């Protein structure tokens, strides 16, 4: 058993894999409220599902969680008290504008490394780490290149496969892993007018070129937190109703893929390059301030000629719920709120009806 389960895109799978362990970002099914587990009420369905999966699913070597969401922070403690496997809580700073915040994240990765070694992993050499990083980056780049030819479900599942146990070795990977400094996109300087942590990875189809909306589908942006496996049905619903997700900006999608690794840093200090790419480029609503999220989203929505935005959020998720009103006021495109509690028997029908009405309005 070498699998290390984790919950957040701010846990670099590369770092776990470089230690010779199998990173697995859990793909979750909705779980019922389980009082015995201590998850009583007012818990978002994702957190509940994560707790349920760890406590009742196949045991992993360890679980890595983060502080990016307060419910998950508390869930880490609950799991630690009830599960057999050790739990590592990675402190991911909410602030990003100071050097100290970046240093804290880097130091937390080093602490995670020591934890992985204690589990039986092997501390990687800089070269080994760089190779793993480039393999993951290559897989992500290939996946983005193939984005346009995939359905929303296929893309979400493919992202999940990279983050999951399968790692970067999948069929959409068209190029072999490059070596440091070779056959990989050039590092971009931070955006001069941006939030300082502008994504360095070129995102989107064909590396930033304006995407062509697929024929017959209304181009949509899907925004929100992590998806559950059952949400793939929602992705199908969107396409069946005449929409096409050209931007998956959920936590499970391309928004949370790290930016391109700094080619100089990856030679000199690959762990620093890893930390910079993850902490320095992934936009999210929990960051303070979170203007970078809107800056990134605005750029991507325009580049992909989106006509409508779907916000997928869970009941009791304050972080996304609080942004709904702001997103509606900010967005030049209509925004549809898709709240989910995953406890309602009638939920799929309700969601379908809302999506259909939204797309009829956009047509």
């Amino acid at each position, binding site marked *: 058993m070498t699998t290390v389960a984790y919950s957040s895109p701010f846990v670099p799978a590369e770092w776990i894999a470089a230690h010779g362990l199998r990173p697995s970002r859990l793909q979750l099914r909705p779980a019922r409220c389980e009082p015995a587990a201590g998850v009583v009420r007012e818990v978002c369905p994702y957190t509940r599902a994560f707790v349920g999966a760890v406590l009742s699913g196949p045991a992993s070597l360890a679980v890595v969680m983060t502080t990016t969401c307060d419910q998950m922070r508390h*869930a880490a403690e609950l799991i630690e008290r009830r599960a057999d496997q050790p739990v590592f809580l990675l*402190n991911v700073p909410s*602030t990003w504008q100071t050097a100290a915040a970046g240093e804290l994240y880097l130091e937390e990765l080093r602490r995670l490394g020591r934890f992985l070694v204690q589990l039986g992993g092997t501390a990687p050499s800089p070269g080994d780490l760089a190779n793993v990083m480039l393999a993951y980056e290559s897989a992500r780049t290939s996946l983005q290149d193939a984005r346009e030819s995939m359905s929303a479900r296929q893309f979400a599942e493919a992202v999940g496969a990279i983050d999951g146990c399968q790692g970067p070795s999948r069929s959409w990977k068209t190029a072999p892993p490059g070596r440091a400094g070779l056959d990989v996109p050039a590092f971009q300087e931070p955006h001069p007018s941006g939030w300082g942590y502008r994504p360095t990875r070129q995102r989107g189809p064909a590396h930033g070129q304006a995407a062509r909306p697929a024929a017959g589908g209304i181009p949509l942006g899907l925004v929100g937190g992590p998806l559950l496996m059952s949400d793939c049905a929602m992705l199908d619903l969107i396409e069946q109703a005449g929409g096409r997700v050209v931007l998956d900006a959920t936590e499970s999608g391309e928004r949370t893929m790290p930016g391109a690794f700094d080619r100089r840093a990856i030679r000199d200090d690959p762990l620093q390059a890893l930390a910079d790419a993850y902490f320095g480029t992934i936009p999210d609503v929990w960051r303070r301030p979170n203007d970078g999220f809107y800056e990134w989203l605005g750029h991507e929505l325009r580049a992909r000629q989106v006509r409508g935005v779907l916000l997928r959020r869970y009941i009791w998720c304050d972080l996304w719920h609080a942004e709904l009103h702001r997103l509606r006021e900010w967005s030049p495109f209509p925004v549809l709120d898709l709240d989910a509690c995953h406890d309602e028997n009638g939920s799929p029908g309700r969601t379908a009806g809302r999506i259909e009405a939204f797309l009829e309005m956009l047509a």
Partner: protein
Amino acid sequence: MNRTARRITLNEWDRRYAELCAAGLREPDYGGPLRRHVDDGDLRLLKLRMDDSAASLRLWNFLLTEEERLHRARAEGKRIVGVMKDLGTVPVMAYALPECVAFYPDGAWWIPCVMERSAGLLDVADSLGIDDSFCPVRAMLGAFVNEAHFPIPEMLTCSVGATCDDVSAIAQRIEALGFPILWWEIPHRRRPDPEEAAVELPGEFRAPQSQVALVRSELQRVGRALEALTGQRLTQRRLSAGIARANRVRRCLAEIRRLAFTASACPLPALEMLIAEMLAIHFCSDQQEAICVLEELLEEVRHRVDAGTGVLPTDAAGVFWVNPVADLRVMNLLEDAGGRVCGTDYLFCHALDPIPEDLPPMEALARTALADPMVGSSADRAGRICEDVRRFGAEAVVISHVPGASHCAMEGAVIGEIVRTRLGIPVLEIEVPPITDSMEPTLRTRLEALVETVVNRRRR
């Protein structure tokens, strides 16, 4: 002072105020009958039972005139700092500077209760998409938008990181509405690794030295912003003096708590104790007056203890209370049910512990900030609760959930489990919204059942 101490209604307070005046009551400039606050909209006072002492009258008047005090400070040209979330640390820095006043906009969470929702703050929050799935702290958003309560501060700070999502998300909305915020990081307090340099924190917690260093650097950043705002240097000398003043408040409160929680006859009701403890956070916008208010309260408590008089029956069930209540009336309910408060964790224990005075002041403040029960694990928090339960002799624990609060969904399970295992005493979990009138019978029944359980355990 020979009269019997009692909890009295507002109508009774009208008569009591006349008695006190006739007896030569001397009040500060914010003094006066409590009735006038009802006329100003503080309708909840009509449903509360309050302590009948002159010291408590001063305490209530001090609390209920804070907005006027802030507006007066603004008119006098003082610099006003709105401090969010950290509950007790940044105000010590702000009050170390001359002509600087700090307060917690989060404190607006009690306005819907005190004004029985007549201020409409929750409606404003609703209209901005912050509905009742959020903690009642959402009232703060309404107060920023309608500007009908506190003056808009010239500087806003908010600690983030290991904090509840509600405040963080709502503060972000406030910033997006055009109120810039200085965000500073407070990391989740973790156990030091075996070979890692660690330091002791107030409250007997331990943290890695590296975390303390991070918080210290963040507080220094806040300090530089305060200096820029006020044009004054936040020197070590000023900070040390500020810490000494804060500690005077904390020492006074510590003694009030010890006496109130351990005396055989409870000398001060839970409601006044809650308000008194709150003064430790930001001194109700006047540090010097807060000290005077608390010292008079301590004198009253000492007098009652010495005289053997109290506001509750001597056999009242001792309850340790976890988390503040959104509806103040619930503190009355506990006492009406036959209980008394013997120990509290209102989420700001770190604001009650003395700040170390034998350390460089910023280091001392960093350690204090990291001792916040909210930034550590619930197990840490439960450990401290258990210690305090033993110290104060509480016989049961009430975990009062704040509706919608991100930390409340799971912490109760951990705290309850640890308390039951270590102490073997009853634990009751309840949820308290800003107005509990519609659910009062249920709450009362649950609290009565807890008290009966405690009484039955005494007979064993």
